[in-house]
């Protein structure tokens, strides 16, 4: 059964290629069957392989062929299956299938239906390669592959130049991180002599001591790649703009799977990170700061998708925090639960947008509770999980992270406190969204109801968002076992209470209106702060002034090719010589005769040695 492993990425690949080759010629029905069916098949195969894996309990390694072999550099096209891979594959194919199913209805009116599914399937393929790769180079292939698919899907409606800009921004910003990661690969290969993850970890453990410079450097470079892909500080600016793509794409790529690739990368190379405590601390700090910053930003946005985008950035920050404090399992656990509830939220948002004539502004919605019940329940459950209300899936994973952060010697309690603040903000902004969109008076009437192919994935994701917290992940063999935790009941109590406080606050501010914050908001400080947060802490502006404009200016300045000045000046000198010498060509016989005579005199004088 384990031998079926390569089939899992093969299905979407074949489907994608078929769809590309036959673009526009296939009937939509067939496109839908092929597009969603291929991922469904992958999900089924994953289930089979997963069962077989559970039986054997051993990591499975399968080499397809040698990619390239030059001297000792010989990465294979090879897959590696262990508990971590299995979790990721299940999320990708499972949630991926639901989102594909949702898309078949959501995109039905689009003329480029088959192009959409071609890209989406290609994405699933690349993402599967990313998580199944047994060496970092193949992982890099998947890594860049998902980046390209993300670029193509964000810019899916290419007729609007803004979408193109968002797509390019997404690709180029992540490419900055990717390049750092590539340098990390160079360093790892140069030092350890291999890019295969398992032997590499062994070599690192035997060659390096905890706290050496090289592992820190290598891990920081890998972290560079991870922050790019996972939209963490300082490379997070692309994700909110990436919401220009179709909403199911945002659900799949920019919430559930691709943006968590950075988390996966760090978890996959955790043995390197264990050798580099400073890098671990950097991961934790990046995660914490990002999660707080994004939560503040999410508080003041009014585009429904941007709120969710910032919330994604914030939640991935939690995962980074988990990785940084060594709570590997908790991080991956949160990755999975986040994939469930964030996909649910995005698809719910998609349903709202779909039924509301592509309206994105939450203040133009309202009162949708009775009008769009499916979307309402999805949002309610999703937001509860996002806010980590007790007994939802998000509660278990976030609780695990916070408690383990608390346990970290030294900075632990600070990290824990920061995380709590983030949790409070998360509860506030997520229920602000629910209360504004679904309660109050109706401002826009929905013109349709979500059909079966939208409702079924939403319902299934609702179930997953609730029960996801009870899943036992097969990660025991992958990560080092964490010590037993005995946090005091007070700490645990606070962790449970904080989201509830947030919920109450959100209720008082946004629904009942008992807590008046208008005065605070309209004070000059409040307005400045709001503007600052709304712009995403002015990071876009900063990068625009610091990098984008100077670079464009440089390109514009140099476009005329200044190197040619050298060659043109040679030409100029030749021309001047020509003009000068042509003056001697008078056409007068006497002048020629005279100059000849003088020439002869000079030559004779030279010969006689007079001169």
């Amino acid at each position, binding site marked *: 059964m384990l031998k079926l492993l390569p089939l899992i990425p093969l299905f979407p690949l074949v489907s994608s290629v078929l769809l590309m080759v036959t673009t526009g010629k296939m009937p939509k029905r067939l496109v839908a069957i092929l597009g969603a069916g291929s991922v469904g098949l992958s999900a089924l195969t994953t289930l089979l392989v997963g069962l077989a894996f559970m039986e054997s309990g051993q990591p499975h390694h399968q080499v397809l062929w040698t990619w390239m072999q030059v001297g000792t550099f010989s990465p294979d096209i090879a897959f590696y299956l262990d508990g971590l891979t299995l979790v990721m594959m299940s999320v990708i194919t499972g949630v991926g299938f639901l989102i594909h199913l949702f898309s078949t209805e959501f995109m039905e009116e689009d003329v480029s239906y088959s192009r959409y599914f071609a890209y989406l399937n290609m994405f699933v393929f690349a993402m599967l390669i990313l998580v199944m790769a047994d060496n970092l180079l193949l992982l890099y292939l998947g890594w860049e592959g998902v980046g390209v698919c993300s670029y193509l899907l964000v810019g899916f409606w290419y007729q609007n130049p803004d979408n193109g800009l968002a797509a390019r921004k997404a690709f180029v910003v992540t490419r900055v991180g990717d390049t750092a990661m590539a340098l990390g690969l160079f360093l790892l290969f140069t030092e350890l002599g291999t890019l295969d993850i398992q032997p590499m970890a062994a070599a690192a453990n035997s060659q390096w001591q905890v706290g050496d410079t090289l592992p820190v450097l290598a891990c920081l470079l890998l972290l560079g790649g991870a922050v790019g892909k996972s939209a963490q500080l300082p490379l997070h600016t692309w994700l909110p703009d990436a919401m220009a793509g179709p909403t199911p794409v945002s659900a799949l790529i920019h919430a559930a799977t691709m943006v968590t690739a950075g988390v996966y990368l760090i978890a996959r190379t955790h043995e390197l990170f264990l050798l580099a405590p400073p890098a671990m601390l950097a991961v934790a700090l990046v995660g914490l700061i990002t999660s707080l910053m994004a939560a503040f930003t999410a508080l003041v946005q009014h585009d429904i998708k941007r709120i969710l985008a910032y919330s994604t950035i914030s939640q991935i920050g939690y995962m980074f925090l988990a990785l940084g404090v060594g709570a590997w399992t908790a991080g991956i656990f949160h990755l999975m639960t986040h994939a469930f509830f964030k996909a649910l939220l995005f698809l719910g948002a998609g349903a709202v947008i779909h039924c509301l004539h592509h309206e994105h502004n939450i203040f133009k919605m309202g009162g949708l509770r009775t009008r769009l019940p499916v979307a309402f329940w999805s949002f309610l459950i999703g937001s509860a999980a996002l806010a980590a209300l007790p007994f939802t899936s998000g509660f278990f994973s976030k609780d695990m992270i916070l408690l383990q952060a608390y346990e970290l010697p030294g900075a632990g309690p600070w990290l824990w406190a920061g995380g709590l603040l983030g949790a409070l903000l998360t509860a506030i902004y997520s229920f602000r969204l629910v209360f504004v969109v679904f309660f109050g008076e109706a401002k826009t009437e929905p013109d349709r109801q979500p059909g079966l192919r939208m409702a079924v994935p939403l319902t299934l994701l609702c179930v997953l968002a609730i029960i996801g917290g009870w899943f036992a992940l097969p990660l025991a063999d992958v990560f080092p076992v964490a010590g037993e935790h005995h946090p005091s009941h007070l700490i645990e109590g606070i962790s449970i209470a904080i989201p509830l406080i947030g919920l109450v606050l959100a209720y008082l501010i946004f629904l009942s209106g008992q807590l008046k914050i208008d005065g605070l908001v309209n004070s000059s400080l409040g307005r400045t702060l709001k503007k600052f947060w709304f712009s995403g802490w002015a990071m876009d502006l900063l990068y625009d002034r610091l990098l984008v404009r100077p670079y464009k200016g440089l390109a514009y300045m140099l476009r005329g090719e200044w190197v040619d000045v050298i060659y043109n000046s040679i030409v100029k000198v030749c021309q001047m010589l020509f003009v000068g*010498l*042509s*003056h*001697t*060509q*008078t*056409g*007068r*016989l*006497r002048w020629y*005769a*005279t100059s000849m*005579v003088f020439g002869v005199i000079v030559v004779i004088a030279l010969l006689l040695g007079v001169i």
Partner: protein
Amino acid sequence: MDGVSIPLDHVLLLSALLFICGLLGLMMRRNVIFILISLEVMLNSSAVAFVAAGARWGQADGQVIFMLILAVAAAEVAVGLGLVIQIQRRFKSLDMDDADRLRG
């Protein structure tokens, strides 16, 4: 040969003077006829030098060269006068400075 022998130096001096006369004429006169005459003078000055040198060394080569120079001068005059006629026809003048079409 008895009798008065003219010293070679004198002849060479004469030859040089004649050559310089011709050269100055060539360099200064604008009329194409005078240019041709100057050329003739220069040719003949060298011819005198050859004859004198032949006499000095008692060799016939000097006279041989003199004959050659005569032939060259004749040919040159033939071509030169042809050119004079063409120049007169084209430029309606014998001033060589008018014929400066090769000016750069």
